[in-house]
């Protein structure tokens, strides 16, 4: 019922993420727990000093995958609402690249759902990060999304 009145918030944004907007979105009088994850740009990566990052996304698919994550969370955990925002473009050290807020009546579901959301986002949402160092830039090592099984058409040996 609440879901139809105030659905989950899923967004890709180019301006700085304001956590308060996402928290306000999920927070309601029936909730006893809100867990948030704030992923921010570290000043180092693999022992090297990071200057800044640049994120790009396959936006239409990324939003679909984020909505899938929200759906999985509601199926698996007794939560109230989830809000996920990922920023794209150039990000400076300390800025928030991804913010997730989950509200629930009780804390275990909020913790588990928030953790599931970021873990799944990092494996399945088509977003890429380029890391800029003093001596160059590299695309970050990423994770391979779970590939569908190949259904090979049987071919006669020729």
């Amino acid at each position: 019922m609440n879901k139809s009145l105030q659905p989950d918030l899923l967004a890709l944004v180019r301006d700085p993420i304001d956590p308060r907007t996402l928290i306000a979105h999920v927070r309601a009088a029936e909730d006893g727990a809100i867990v948030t994850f704030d992923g921010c740009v570290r000043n180092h990566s693999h022992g090297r000093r990071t200057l800044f990052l640049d994120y790009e996304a396959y936006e239409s698919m990324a939003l679909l995958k984020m909505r899938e994550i929200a759906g999985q969370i509601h199926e698996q955990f007794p939560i109230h609402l989830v809000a996920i925002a990922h920023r794209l473009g150039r990000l400076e050290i300390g800025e928030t690249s991804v913010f997730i807020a989950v509200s629930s009546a009780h804390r275990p579901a909020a913790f588990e759902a928030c953790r599931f959301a970021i873990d799944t986002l990092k494996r399945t949402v088509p977003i890429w990060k380029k890391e800029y160092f003093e001596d160059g830039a590299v695309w970050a090592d990423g994770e391979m999304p779970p590939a569908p099984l190949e259904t090979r058409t049987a071919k006669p040996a020729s």
Partner: protein
Amino acid sequence: MAGRTCAGYNSLVSLSSQTARVKVLFFGRLKEIVGHAEDSVELPDGAPIEALFSHYGVNHPELARFRASLVASRNQEFAAWSTPLHSGDEVAFLPPVSGG
């Protein structure tokens, strides 16, 4: 680059075969190799995603090196390399993702 025919598969097109025009997207490292983010390609209707990828390998042999670490998508869903393509499909070649 738009409007090219998927050369490697022209030989498979019989005279009565239909062709399909698909939109192709490249991201991250792949975009840099291929040199553009978006392409439009004509190929035999029903040709697999694998064939579309091989087509780009002709001009960019270094793509082969990434094949094992790529996942393909068709119409915003992860898709097997054997997935047949039809007109209007949107295909993307996705390097390992690194959001978050």
